[in-house]
């Protein structure tokens, strides 16, 4: 009878929204409980996606990113460190030569050792080119999975803990929702576990760096971000935000010079450690550096939804200008696009605007920098997912457009089923019953416009998959997708820039609430 009594009086949720009752059983167990369940599910989804083909599967002679990563493992475990970036008879840099910074090379070396343990044939020098096997694929997939679980997941937990410490209780019910949106970002999963890359490592390091900076551990944050930069040079998309926020913060300290010097030393020290095998001569380091900036690949690739590619429909940039002026042009465009956000950060280095700054600088780089790939949209997506609580609509909008912009790439990789499933999963998680307190934004007046655009996308998908393009314009549909996505990205870019400049009501309110307490 007593048991019955307890049951009749179940743990009372402290919130009034009837929807949140769904998750009360997990929410009241704290962040870690939600994190465990969500990360198990996120891992499951990743493993399921990894069942699907990778880029360039069974497609000789160049294969795809999978072969590139495997080839790097082959090179790094068979050659001495100094030879990794050097063209030679053994190391043909024209065949997927190493073009990522040294940390990627070390990671390839480490993973290569594991592969050699279980499947030596898959990393043997020369003979393993184009090697594809059941066990080889599995091992490669598991290296990504373990990197994700060991770097990205803990970093997200760290971020969530920092982000929600000191926030009012009411917001804590949405922690699970926020974790799910970060961990189950469809684009990241599709690229890492479908297409095959290791973005989870550099992005995970970035997440940890952001969390460290949000908790005022600036030196740790700088070291972590330098590591991210050393894993993938693309992390430089975030550099303006890190730089200007930290600079702005240092300028407000008693001894700005010492503060700046401290951070500078941390960054230089990290770089020195990572680059130590190549620091014996300037020539050697320049050799590596030249591999990291593949300008010869042109200002854009395929049909990426950025400024250069989209405007190339009207202005033939590649024919009009040489490499040198093009480089200069894109550099000025990128910097001027970053500038407003950087100035704001230096002027008022607040934590909430730091997250906006990350988003804005990454978007600016995506839209205007040299040699951008479709996959680079992952970088702006990360800070957008940090901002999920404040601007859920931006995350939804950006993710959907990013997914669509990658659709041609994923179709080539035969990843249509996971594309559909993960897109659906993301929309479901976004609309998690009882997941979020702030529902104002979804009921905005953009509803009809959004519906119109969504139906456009739906039609485009069907058309892309079923109808052959006219012979005169074989890339007509890609161009249409690119145009649509580019216009959305620009709108988002302008919107988030204005948001960074106008302090949000929400954060103002929460600081007010803190004062009251």
């Amino acid at each position: 009878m007593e048991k019955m009594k307890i049951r009749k009086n179940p743990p009372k949720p402290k919130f009034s929204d009837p929807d949140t009752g769904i998750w009360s059983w997990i929410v009241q167990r704290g962040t870690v409980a939600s994190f465990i369940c969500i990360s198990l599910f996120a891992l499951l989804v990743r493993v399921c996606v990894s069942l699907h083909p990778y880029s360039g599967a069974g497609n000789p002679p160049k294969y795809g990113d999978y072969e590139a990563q495997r080839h790097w493992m082959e090179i790094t475990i068979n050659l001495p460190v100094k030879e990794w970036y050097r063209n030679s008879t053994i190391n043909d840099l024209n065949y997927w030569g190493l073009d990522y910074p040294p940390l990627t090379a070390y990671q390839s070396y480490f993973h290569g050792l594991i592969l050699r343990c279980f499947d030596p044939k898959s990393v043997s020098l020369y003979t393993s080119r184009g090697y594809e096997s059941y066990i080889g694929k599995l091992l490669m997939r598991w290296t990504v999975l373990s990197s994700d679980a060991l770097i990205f997941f803990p970093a997200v937990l760290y971020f969530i803990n920092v982000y929600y410490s000191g926030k009012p209780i009411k917001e804590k019910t949405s922690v699970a929702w926020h974790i799910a949106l970060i961990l189950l970002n469809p684009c990241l999963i599709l690229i890492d576990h479908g297409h095959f890359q290791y973005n989870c490592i550099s992005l995970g390091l970035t997440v940890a760096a952001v969390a460290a900076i949000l908790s005022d551990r600036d030196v740790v944050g700088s070291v972590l971000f330098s590591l991210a930069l050393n894993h993938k040079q693309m992390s430089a998309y975030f550099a303006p935000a890190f730089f200007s926020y930290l600079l702005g913060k240092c300028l407000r300290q008693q001894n700005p010079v010492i503060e700046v010097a401290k951070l500078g030393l941390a960054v230089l020290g990290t770089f020195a450690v990572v680059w130590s095998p190549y620091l014996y001569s300037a020539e050697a380091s320049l050799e590596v550096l030249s591999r990291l900036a593949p300008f010869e690949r042109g200002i854009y690739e395929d049909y990426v939804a950025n400024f250069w590619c989209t405007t190339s429909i009207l202005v033939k940039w590649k024919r009009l200008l040489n490499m040198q002026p093009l480089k200069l042009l894109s550099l000025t465009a990128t910097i001027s696009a970053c500038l407003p956000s950087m100035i704001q950060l230096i002027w008022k280095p607040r934590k909430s605007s730091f997250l906006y700054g990350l988003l804005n600088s990454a978007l600016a780089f995506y839209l205007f920098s040299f040699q951008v790939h479709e996959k680079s949209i992952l970088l702006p997506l990360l800070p957008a997912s940090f901002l999920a609580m404040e601007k859920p609509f931006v995350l939804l909008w950006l993710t959907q457009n990013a997914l669509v912009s990658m659709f041609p790439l994923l179709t080539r990789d035969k990843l249509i089923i996971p594309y559909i499933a993960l897109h659906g999963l993301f929309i479901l998680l976004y609309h998690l019953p009882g997941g979020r307190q702030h529902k104002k934004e979804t009921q905005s007046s953009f509803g009809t416009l959004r519906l119109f655009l969504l139906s456009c996308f739906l039609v485009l998908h069907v058309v892309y998959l079923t109808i052959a393009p006219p012979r005169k314009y074989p890339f007509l549909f890609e161009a249409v997708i690119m145009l649509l996505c580019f216009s959305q990205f620009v709108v988002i870019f302008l919107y988030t820039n204005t948001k960074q400049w106008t302090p949000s009501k929400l954060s103002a309110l929460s600081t007010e609430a803190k004062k009251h307490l």
Partner: protein
Amino acid sequence: MNHRKLHHNSTAQNQNEQIPAASIPKTCGNQLYHFLWFSLIATCTKLLLIPAYHSTDFEVHRNWLALTHSLPLSQWYSDETSPWTLDYPPFFAYFEYFLSFFASMLDPTIVHLTDGLNSKSHLTILFQRLSVTLSDAVLFYGIYRITRKLDPKQKYLIWVLAVWAPGLIIVDHLHFQYNGFLLGMLLISLSALENGEDLLGGFAFAVLLCFKHLFAVAAPVYFVYLLRHYCRGGLVKGFGRLVVMGSVVVAVFAAAYGPFVYNGQIHQVLRRMFPFGRGLCHAYWAPNFWVFYIMFDKLLAFLLVKMGFHVKAPTASFTGGLVGDSSPFAVLPTITPLISLVLVLLSISPCLLKAWRDPKPSAVTRLVAYAYSCGFMFGWHVHEKASLHFVIPLAIIALKSVEDAKHYFFLSIVSCYSLFPLLYEAQEYPIKVLLLLLHAALMWFGLSSYFGAYVPKGDERSHSSAVVRNADFVIGWFGKSYLMGIVVVEICGQFLHPVVLGNKLPFLPLMMISIYSGFGMMYSWIWQLKWIIGSI
């Protein structure tokens, strides 16, 4: 503003405390949306599993598509083009016939009797996987129907347990079968019975039997229950109702078997459905009573040999049929299908007695689940997948008491683990482990929050520092060590065995799994039996 909020807060709490039913109409639309959310999450995950490993059952069902599509009804049960002949009851054949229309629209080779043999094209896989995923709508409807009268808190937890059941995903969406859809029908039938709509319940069960005859294990329970609950109210009224129920059931069976009787095929149909000559155990021993019987026999033989007696080594295998008069057992008497049948009926008898004496709608799910556990424990040639037949219905009643919850927590982990050998390839290894871990974690947090006393530490305002104490939902040290033992068995079988023994004794890990899960299943069966005997 603050005041209004507070007010709203307290009214919501009051509603929660007083009558949960009062809040149901308000959130009814919400409830359906929430349920759809749960099922769509499951569906998206299932879509991702399309390229995963599938067993020969995949080709079995493809062949059934082909033969129902290309042959006239009279040859469905006599065709032998493929070794995977049709051996399910007619409704399932009709179901395949229905599916085959869509398959032929997609790609005619799928339904071609000879060209389609062992077809593994992308379209074939896509079509078959999608057919399972879509037919799960019946399962979802069944779960929704049977939980619709519960209060929202219970609903959400039961949906977590049933809609996201890992066993069903392993068997249906990896191994390849249509259990979700069949169990959905069972749940529809049970929900009708619980609701007092006996005729509908009987009808749904009859339909289910014509889809898969393995569900007939619960037929005695249904019979006794309906006889006592539906056909009551005096001799005349009772007899009238018996006639009504009887004619409904006969009509269903006539619809299923009629065409075959008309074609003179009925003997052939029955011969296919009840193939004699299969062994006591399936290739991988299901973790049931017979595992202990076999092990006891081996032990006895070993001891007798040690003591100097002469024991003839058995020549027949457990999994194959009975060859001549040789027995697979060295010492203990041979088991025949009849003995197994008698044992099943004997073990069911307490719940028949219960159904006879006290046919309560609220207990019917438990009785039916118990009957399926008996069938699983003592049945002839039982598959490990059959444990789903009682695990899924038990999920529905897992929140009735804390004892139920503990039992379910334990059983569903054991049952899911016993399905592990179905997926033996490396690629699916992380999937099955993650499925089990996720399920266990969700169950643990869900059940312990539901049954745990909630003690806020210190001030009411400091919500974050509230402590959840598991006052009631406690898995004792024995249960905990058993569950930890699963980890040990898994590590020994999967990682130590290949290192230590290499390729020797390849069936040892499987045997260990079935013996170890056998203990858990035995415990679950005894627990259910005790409950039923205690309630008579």
